[in-house]
């Protein structure tokens, strides 16, 4: 799971939980406070009625008293009809629909009902104080008291859902903004994560672009503190990697020295005895030359592989190609093979390492010469292609079947074992050099359908890997 997703989930769910707890607590506290408030109000209303009853009972008979009270406190019938959802203020201004949620009961000192807006008929067991009661299908909170001077019992009742509604609204009012803010919070968290992770992405690019020939430590000043350790460790790894590559480069050079000197001695000794038995020693000299060639090729490949330092310069690709063909042409002409250059650019500037491109071309041409029968032509073509140049070297030899081509590019593979000479590294070296320049190399058929192999190389005009360092 990505860090971003993890963080967003963790943060939003935590905030959600906290909101819920806060809402629950708020609900509980406000409920309690509301209960007290409502209870006090209930008691107050009762006392007002008590005052009224006391005042009336001194001048009026019980019947008159009942009449007056009911006239004042009895609710109009219209309040008992109608829907709960209608307007709170009645249309004629006669009252508030919430009034029906408050009821009054008055009993005479001998506990005869005088007023009962609750319509509950429950005179028995009158006891002073707060209580819960069920009537008209609702729960009611009641406060009952006895007027000590007149002996009247007075009870005020309030429907419980009034209280619930209010406390729910208050609790919801507290929670709702939080719930609505939750998606906004998630977006804000996402944005912060994106901003905070930017330095990490900045670190990624140099690592992605790093090639063996171009290893450098990451800039740990750019790294956030949390990943500084990781960057430090990676830098350590890069340093060790570079050292290993450096050792390999040195090994190549040292091996060159150690192998060349004994080979030189061997070759000269064979030359010395060559006169005695030319046939036998001629073969041996050839064998030594082949070995020299193999050593050269292996060392070259190892240098190319380990990414020895190849500072790129701007070169005229046409001139490099001309020189490469000029270099190998005498060998070709000796075998009656005609090398031809078809250059459609004349002047083609590329950033490259000229000696390596020369090696690439000579490898391809040497390969073509080796497999070409006499009296054939090896055509080298140079054309602009995209942001670079396409080079093809086509011979009129036997070619390579499509299914064998990938194998032909691997190292130490000679498809035709009878044709000695090569080490089977030429094409591998050529491909590696093309790749080192950000290009590629493929084996293909001749475009004109004749038998023969076409090696196609593409090189970018601006070599990405090499230009980076300059």
């Amino acid at each position, binding site marked *: 799971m990505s860090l971003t997703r993890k963080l967003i989930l963790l943060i939003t769910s935590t905030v959600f939980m906290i909101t819920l707890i806060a809402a629950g607590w708020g609900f509980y506290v406000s409920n309690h406070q509301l209960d007290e408030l409502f209870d006090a109000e209930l008691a107050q209303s009762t006392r007002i009625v008590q005052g009224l009853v006391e005042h009336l009972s001194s001048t009026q008979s019980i019947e008159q008293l009942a009449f007056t009270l009911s006239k004042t406190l009895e609710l109009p019938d219209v309040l008992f009809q109608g829907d709960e959802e209608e307007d709170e203020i009645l249309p004629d201004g006669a009252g508030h629909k919430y009034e029906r949620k408050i009821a009054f009961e008055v009993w005479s000192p001998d506990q005869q009902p005088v007023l009962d807006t609750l319509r509950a008929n429950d005179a028995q067991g009158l006891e002073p104080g707060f209580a819960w009661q069920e009537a008209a299908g609702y729960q009611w909170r009641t406060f009952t008291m006895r007027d000590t001077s007149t002996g009247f019992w007075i009870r005020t009742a309030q429907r419980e859902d009034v209280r619930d509604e209010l406390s729910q609204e208050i609790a919801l009012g507290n929670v709702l903004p939080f719930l609505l803010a939750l998606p906004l919070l998630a977006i804000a968290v996402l944005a912060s994560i994106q901003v905070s992770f930017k330095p990490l992405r900045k670190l990624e690019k140099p690592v992605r672009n790093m090639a063996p020939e171009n290893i450098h430590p990451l800039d740990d000043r750019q790294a956030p503190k949390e990943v500084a350790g990781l960057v430090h460790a990676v830098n350590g790894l890069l340093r060790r990697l570079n050292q290993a590559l450096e050792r390999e480069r040195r090994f190549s050079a040292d091996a*060159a020295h150690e192998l060349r000197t004994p080979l030189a001695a061997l070759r000269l*000794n064979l030359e010395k005895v060559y006169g005695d038995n030319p046939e036998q020693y001629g073969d041996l000299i050839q064998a030594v030359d082949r070995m020299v060639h193999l050593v050269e090729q292996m060392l070259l490949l190892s240098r190319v592989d380990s990414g020895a330092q190849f500072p790129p310069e701007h070169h005229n690709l046409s001139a490099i190609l*001309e020189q490469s*063909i*000029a270099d190998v*042409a*005498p060998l070709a002409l000796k075998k009656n093979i*005609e090398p*031809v250059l078809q250059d459609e650019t004349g002047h083609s500037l590329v950033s490259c390492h000229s000696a390596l491109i020369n090696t690439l071309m000579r490898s391809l041409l040497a390969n073509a010469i080796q497999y070409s029968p006499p009296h054939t032509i090896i055509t080298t073509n140079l054309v602009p292609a995209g942001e670079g140049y396409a080079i093809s070297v086509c011979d009129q030899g036997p070619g390579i079947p499509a299914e064998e081509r990938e194998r032909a590019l691997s190292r130490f593979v000679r498809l035709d074992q009878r044709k000695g000479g090569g080490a089977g590294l030429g094409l591998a070296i050529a491909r590696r050099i093309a790749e080192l320049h950000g290009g590629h190399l493929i084996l293909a058929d001749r475009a004109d359908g004749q038998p023969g192999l076409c090696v196609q190389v593409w090189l970018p005009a601006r070599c990405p890997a090499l230009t980076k360092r300059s």
Partner: protein
Amino acid sequence: MRILLTEDDHPLANTMLSMLRDDQNTVDWVDDGQQALNALLNESFDLAILDLTLPRVDGLDIVRQVREQGVELPIIILTARSELTEKLQGLDAGADDYLTKPFAMSELKARIRAVTRRRSGTRVSGLKVGRLVLDPDSAQLQVGTETFVLPRSELQILHYLMRHPDQVATRRRLEEQLYGWDQGAESNALEVHVHHLRRRLGKQAIRTVRGVGYMLDSKAASEGQEI
């Protein structure tokens, strides 16, 4: 000719010694840099063959010190490394030529001849390839029994080709010989000059590598194919 051979690989040194001695040379051999330096500074040699990687004193240092002391003998360095920088360092230090191991004895002998000739100041009066003999100063070309006086452009081209027989000279290189870096020439001027040369030398003597350049074929030049 008295030659100092400095080579720390004994089998190679022994073979070189015997082969160089076969050619009537006096050859002295040392296998470390300090001895080589002492010998070169205190005794008189006609030529030094110097391996670059030596015990005690490095081959490059020997060349530098010898030149600083004003010793002017020709020096050929042997190197087991094929990197261009190493060869250039050797030449910059004052060596006359270099050879990469392993090498053919014939090549070493050719280099020896070349550097001693250059050093001794003996100018080769004429260049000779097969039946062709060219005297660049008088612009005279001798083909077998015939003698021509070459126009300047043809002389320049042939002079270059004869100095590099059996090697392909690119058109670019030949045009540089003719005009320097000013590309003022007509595009087919080179072809015209080569065409004229072929009329004098025989068709086969100068081979064309299409799109690349020309090569003087020493074999064809010897066989003397006429027009």
